[in-house]
């Protein structure tokens, strides 16, 4: 059965602050095999004009997975069949790099739901801000539930 389009506009409350750890950044940089010193060495990061080590551009997906995607998965009312879900599309708009020590909040909204060729498409916008409300990154994730529409 196709997903209910009345869930367009559904919001998920801002998450508790996520504190970005210097070792989590290093772990992520190691996992993607990127040796760039700005992800590990404070002096290299400062030389590039940053206050401390920065996170790789796609690190923010860790916070999105941890906070937004898990909220959607736990949302029984939405009724998305997670066994059928694949990642269809991802975009990021960066206001500034994420840095070690950042305390970030994430809020999520379902921006669109549509059905095409037997698949459901769910477009989720995630706003990542500092705890004081400064915008850091906007992510848009398209989830595709195959064969559910």
């Amino acid at each position, binding site marked *: 059965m196709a997903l209910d389009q009345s869930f367009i506009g559904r919001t998920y409350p801002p998450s508790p602050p996520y504190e970005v750890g210097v070792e989590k950044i290093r772990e992520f940089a190691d996992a*993607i*095999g990127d040796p760039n*010193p700005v992800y590990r060495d404070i002096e290299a990061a400062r030389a*590039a004009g940053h206050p401390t080590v920065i996170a790789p551009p796609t690190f923010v997906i860790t916070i999105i*997975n941890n906070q937004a995607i898990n909220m959607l998965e736990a949302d029984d009312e939405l009724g998305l069949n997670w066994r059928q879900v694949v*990642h269809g*599309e991802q975009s990021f708009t*960066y206001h500034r790099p994420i840095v070690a020590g950042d305390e970030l909040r994430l809020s999520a909204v379902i921006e669109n739901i549509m059905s095409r060729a037997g698949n459901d498409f769910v477009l989720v916008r995630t706003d990542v801000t500092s705890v004081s409300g400064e915008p850091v990154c906007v992510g848009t994730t398209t989830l595709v539930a195959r064969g559910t529409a």
Partner: protein
Amino acid sequence: MTTRSYAGVSVGDELPPLTVVLTRENLVRYAGASLDFNKIHWDDKTAAEAGLPDVIAHGMLTMALVARVVTDWAGDPGALMTYRTKFTRPVIVPNDGVGATVELTGRVTEKDDTERTVRVELTAKFEGKTVLGRPMAVVRLLS
């Protein structure tokens, strides 16, 4: 590390390409680092039940690899303003100790003199076929 200057960039410039080999171990490490524990990325049985020939890499891992083409070239990863892609074809990663070879390239397609931004269109190929749909990045360069 030097940051690339806007003035020195021309439309049509090819970015230095990268070739990366992904093994099953890389997928397990990425699952832990990214908190994406979908079993399709590490469990043979789950992959087979989903109708796949074998375990597949996280699309976001491939997206992270292509980003490096841009960030290595730009000099400062903080220069990235926009980054997006579609995930169109899986990268199959058998548990054979050899893994999957992914080839990554990029090319400058636009310059915006007002914003001092550069648009880069990217490709990620596995077994000669693209696995990402229209991946692109916009970077802001300083001078």
